[in-house]
């Protein structure tokens, strides 16, 4: 199976820790970041298949991360996770090329299901994620 590279960005460390283990169990290579500037620098260095990003962060917004990721790699699947979801934000994110958006709180299984769908669209066949 092709290895899927995921960048996971959330300024709350607990979110990254909580979500990473399930994605790793699915066979994904996951890099977690808490700082969006550092995450964007990493995106410029490495081609990720999937970027999962929070929106409201002090140093830069998740929308900036989305724009950067899509500019450098139009094929990347960007998943927005946010505790401040609105219809306006949803439309802005989709307009700028987001693959999907999910509102916090959500379960790790919710996110894994989204990642599985994104992986399948990337041509990677995966079985149902653990916990499904």
């Amino acid at each position: 199976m092709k290895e899927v590279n995921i960048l996971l960005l959330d300024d709350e460390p607990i979110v990254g820790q909580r979500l990473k283990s399930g994605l790793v169990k699915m066979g994904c290579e996951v890099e977690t970041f808490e700082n969006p500037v550092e995450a964007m620098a990493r995106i410029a260095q490495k081609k990720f298949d999937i970027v999962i990003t929070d929106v409201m962060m002090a140093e830069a917004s998740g929308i900036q991360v989305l724009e950067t990721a899509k500019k450098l790699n139009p094929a990347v699947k960007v998943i927005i996770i946010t505790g401040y979801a609105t219809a306006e934000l949803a439309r802005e994110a989709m307009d700028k090329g987001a693959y999907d958006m999910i509102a916090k709180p959500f379960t790790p299984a919710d996110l894994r299901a989204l990642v599985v769908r994104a992986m399948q669209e990337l041509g990677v066949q995966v079985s149902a994620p653990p916990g499904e």
Partner: protein
Amino acid sequence: MSSIALLSQHEKQGLEIGRHIASQLDYRLVSMETLLEITAEQFQIPPADLAGVFKTKSLWQGRFSKKRTKFFACIEQQLCRLIADDRVVFVGYVGHTIFQEISHVLKVLVLAQPSSQAAADPTIKNWFMSVYQKDLEDPSLYDLTVNLAQLDVAEAGNIIINTMKHHKFAPMTYSMKCMCNLELSSQIKTMLVEDYPDVAVKSHDGAIYVYSSGFNRGKQKAALNTKQKLLRLEGVSHVEVHGDKKLFDSIACGQVR
């Protein structure tokens, strides 16, 4: 898939556009008349009584008219069910405000051809203002306003179709969940509105937040009974019952039913 909620100053022109869109996209066309028919059947309400909600001034005047609020809750619940099924083009004058937070529902206002000399029916305009406290011809309520002064029905329909195909109006996990939440909130509102005409409901993934002045301090029994009743519903995992409107308003679920 996305859906469309279309309001036309001229009902017949709106329906023609709706028919064009439905045939091009293989969508289901739901007119106001169809919505009322389905609602009447579903809730066992005489169709004439239901239609009277919009025509009989005394039914929509008076903020907490029990009959109005019950019938109206049924209509909104039925519309939520239909829109949740996806691939629907709805032509009518409810829904544009309740779907404000649903990003994959395209809200459209169609301005009538000048030759038809048709502005929106004043009775409907008054009704809309009474229920939603908004002007139904206010363009800020809509994602798209189409003026038939220079366009025929097919051209107007094609503009709406092309707008709807834009990625920003595509369904996503968030908007689909919002729709499920809205559907559940509308179901609960219909259940409670006869006993609590000022009831408002918010839902988030099985957590239900209910407000009514009928749950004020000293009415704990009513609140407890309501909580127990709602906890028996499928998909409901948590219920909060509030008699304090300010506290209820501070709960951010992105929707109020």
